[in-house]
């Protein structure tokens, strides 16, 4: 049914910026950045806008949770250790 001119379905668009379970900060941030840019570019349907906004907020919350996270761990690599 989807023709070339149909807008991308909102849920597909949302999934394109989905969070992975063990994404590091870099992955989360770059996706958040991409979502914000996509919203700024505009040209989206209302559904797409709302889906992206929802995804962006999830990414932002994850990013902030990572930023607020715990103490730095220090692992010591001993001589001869692999």
């Amino acid at each position, binding site marked *: 049914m989807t023709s070339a001119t149909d807008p991308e379905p909102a849920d597909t668009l949302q999934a394109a910026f989905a969070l992975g379970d063990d994404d590091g*900060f870099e992955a989360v941030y770059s996706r958040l950045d991409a979502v*914000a840019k996509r919203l700024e570019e505009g040209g989206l349907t*209302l559904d797409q806008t709302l889906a992206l906004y929802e995804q962006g907020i999830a990414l932002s919350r994850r*990013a902030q949770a990572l930023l607020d996270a715990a103490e730095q761990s*220090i692992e*010591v*690599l001993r001589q001869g250790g692999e």
Partner: protein
Amino acid sequence: MPPEARPVWQVTRYLRELLERDTAMSDLWIGGEVSNLTTSSAGHIYFTLKDQGGALRCAYFRNQNVRVRLREPMRNGDAVIVHGKIEFYPQGGTLQCIVDFAQPAGVGALQAEFERRRAKFEEEGLFDPARKRELPRFPRKIGVITSQTGAAYHDITTVLARRWPLAPILFRPTPVQGDEAPVEVAEAIRSMGLRLRPEARPDVVIVGRGGGSAEDLWAFNEEPVLRAMFGCPVPVVSAVGHETDVTLADLVADMRAPTPSAAAELVAPDREEVTRAVRALEATMYARSRQRTGIARDATHRLANRVERLLPDTHGWRRRVTAHADGMAHVAHRSAREAREMTAGLAARVQALSPQATLQRGYALVSTAAGAPASRAASVAAGEEIEVRWADGSRRATVSATATGAPAGGGVGSDA
């Protein structure tokens, strides 16, 4: 027996090999004054290095002498120090120094050696700016190679903990001065960069130590360290001594930090700054979404207005219906009044037809004793008791005689 005469080639070859085996003669610095300087058409430089006690022929070949030949020319009478090896040249029967580095005297020996190595590794491409890699924007894991007991370790971990605690630190303690330091530091770099599985590797490594004398920092000018840094698969940040100390490691590193603290600053983004950036992105997204929903709302309003205009004029219709309803109610009221009036008329007529009204006019009504109307004379016989009712009351009477054709009973109604 006369001693056996050896051929010349045997002697010269022996001398050549003797010099080659002598490590002191194959890697040495010599200081003296330049004389008999010539440059061949091929670009080789020949000169005699001499002082008050001796002279030594020197050959400074084209592939080594670019800097001296083109940029910092040597002249007769210059006091210089040269680095090279002593070689016996069998064909000419001469001893000469094959020079690979020369620079004006007056510079300390360590500095001269530093300059020699710098020239050598530069030539080899170890400092090539094109090879330098970007540091990761948000490091996942940060490698730290320095002494466990030095100030550098404390400085680096303090800054990292403040700025970017998200990334775990992989610390490899190693001596940073002394004879074993160059090999140990080199091994530490390899152990992080190459020995670990790629996913366990840090994505950036800080190598360094705190300040000290030029001799203290010397390990960071040693070839094993430079080669290990050059071969490291992840970017390396050097942090050796203070701002003014430059080591060859600084030149090989992907980025040079003036101090260990500065290296940590370079490697780690500032958490607060990044938090602000995340919030700014959130604000952007919010503004854009608001804008978009605003557009949708306005569009909905415009559409609603259009639909309103296109729909039948319900208000007008309602008005008309109401008018009709009012008219009907009016008609109904009028009908009801007329009906009431008609009813009243009918009632009057009915009233006029009732016996009571006749009685009112002076007539009397005769009925049998049983109460049945006796509307005809034949209805009663002589001797029968009857009841006669007037408007104001009734009386009992007895029929005395019957007379055909005569008014009934004669007595009945005769007094009316």
